[in-house]
């Protein structure tokens, strides 16, 4: 995409970038973070600076490491959902559903079509919320605050839908092993329709009008922090950041889960893998998500919203008070007394930032023997020093912002 734009060649910025590094230069060490408003999270970058130009950098991560993998080895499966919320907290429902699907794969449970469609709707709303934050914050970091303010109103509406679905806003704990905890309520459906048919397209169109062809924005982001497709693959990039480099890898298409094969949508890809391409890919993905949600609402199947899985899905409260069997199951599930089958599963979903994988080893006990989260942020953040080598500090901020590094996901 960026190739079609006029790239500033002889601006002072471009000339400054090409100035060679002199050996006897005195370097400055600059700590960017751990708590800096521009890092959007708790992680540190120790940068070696030559004037305003970055010579090299080293990241320190782990400031909010909460030992989720260790905690998970002690918890029954349904209690691990709340840990996944706190990884990429900008799109918690995707993490939740990814975990439910991993356990369902281990148990061999087939979830009814209706539940799968509701999951798709919630996951795509989460993706929109995630991308909204990333793109509007990129605007803030390049000096445009208004886009952020416009879009956060829309994000608020998505959070109201979460609230309607599960009662929570940020750490959602949405869905259950075997389905959803409740059906799509008429209010929720109304709010979703209002969002995808009216509010979101309007806000996105306005946002794109403000940014896509904005001269100042283009000067700040085009050709900033580009990464080649080959290098991106070596670094294990996935999601929008990889697609911006031109590789059309999307887990939703490659290994469809939760009925993604039923929907018709495109995978947007970029050319150069620079900040502008990442921005544009995310923007386009939001439109694709809106398309998917519309299809899901229009073809929402009737039927149950949970699988008939007594050992994992809580029985209705009425039945618990009146039916002995239901009471037993309720007790066993809540106390985590149910043993899972032996096996090992790898399940991947397309998270807001890329391939979010769950590697689960079960030894037949109540809790996982080993659970490993493949966190896309943790993997691609390694490339950051290479990407910001030789750029000005203000560009490094834009690069970090467009990579969408979420501290919760980085540190698990």
């Amino acid at each position: 995409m960026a190739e079609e734009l006029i790239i500033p060649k002889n601006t002072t910025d471009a000339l400054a970038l090409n100035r060679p590094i002199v050996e006897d230069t005195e370097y400055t060490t600059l700590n960017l973070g751990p708590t800096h408003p521009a890092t959007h999270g708790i992680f540190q970058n120790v940068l070696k600076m030559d004037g305003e130009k970055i010579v090299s950098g080293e990241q320190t991560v782990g400031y909010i490491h909460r030992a989720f993998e260790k905690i998970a080895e002690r918890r029954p499966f349904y209690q691990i959902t709340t840990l996944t919320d706190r990884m990429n907290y900008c799109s918690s429902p995707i993490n939740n559903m990814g975990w439910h699907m991993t356990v369902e794969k281990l148990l061999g449970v087939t979830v009814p079509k209706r539940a799968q469609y509701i999951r798709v709707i919630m996951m795509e709303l989460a993706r929109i919320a995630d991308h909204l934050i990333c793109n509007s914050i990129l605007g803030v970091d390049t000096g445009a605050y208004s886009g952020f303010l416009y879009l956060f109103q829309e994000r608020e509406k998505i959070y109201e839908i979460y609230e309607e679905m599960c009662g929570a806003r940020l750490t959602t704990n949405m869905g259950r092993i075997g389905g959803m905890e409740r059906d799509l309520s008429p209010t929720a459906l109304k709010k979703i329709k209002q969002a995808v048919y009216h509010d979101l397209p309007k806000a996105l169109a306005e946002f794109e009008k403000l940014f896509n062809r904005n001269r100042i924005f283009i000067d700040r982001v085009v050709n900033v922090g580009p990464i080649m497709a080959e290098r991106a693959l070596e670094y294990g990039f996935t999601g929008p950041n990889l697609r911006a480099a031109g590789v059309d890898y999307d887990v939703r298409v490659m290994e469809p889960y939760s009925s993604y094969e039923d929907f018709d949508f495109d995978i947007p890809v970029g050319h150069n893998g620079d900040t502008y391409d990442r921005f544009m890919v995310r923007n386009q993905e939001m439109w694709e998500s809106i398309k998917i949600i519309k299809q899901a609402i229009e073809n929402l199947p009737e039927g149950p919203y949970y699988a008939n899985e007594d050992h994992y899905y809580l029985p209705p409260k009425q039945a618990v008070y009146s039916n002995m069997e239901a009471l037993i199951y309720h007790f066993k599930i809540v106390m985590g007394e149910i043993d899972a089958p032996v096996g090992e599963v790898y399940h991947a979903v397309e998270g807001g930032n890329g391939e979010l994988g769950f590697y689960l080893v079960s030894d037949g006990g109540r809790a996982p023997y080993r659970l490993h989260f493949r966190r896309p942020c943790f993997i691609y953040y390694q490339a950051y020093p290479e990407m910001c080598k030789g750029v000005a500090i203000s560009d490094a901020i834009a690069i970090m912002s467009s990579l969408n590094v979420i501290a919760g996901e980085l540190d698990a």
Partner: protein
Amino acid sequence: MLSNQQIAEDILAHFGENVKNFEEPYELLTFTTNRQNIINLLVYLHKHETFRFRFLTDICGIHLPDNAGEEFGVIYHLHSLENNKRVRIKVFLSADDIHIPTATTLYATANWLERETYDFYGIIFDGHPNLKRILNIEEMDYFPMRKEYPLEDATRNDKIDALFGR
């Protein structure tokens, strides 16, 4: 479409006794090799003209204290984006000698993943450019994901497992 059978046969033909325990849990080809052959195997799969396993999805460790002589495991997940096929490779190491060659020469991704594995299990990746702790503090003198460190405080007596039938 490439099948697990084809991949397994090809690898068996090249590596013979050095690869074993072929399984297909949930349709994902899984097998075990040893640390002398792991890098050769990764290179072979990377360079293979039809398989093209060029994307390293994940590296993680596992601790199996009851598995005498093979207490530690390193698990690699590879992905062939062209064929849309995944494989899982396991290497088991003895607790007395937990060294394994690094995969950073082949994949830039492996850097932090190996550091993370070292951080939690103490598995030493020989040849790694910067093998130090990543998520935990550097002063830490133990490897927290090992099974000898149970999660709950052992001195607490208000949670008796027997009362819950555990």
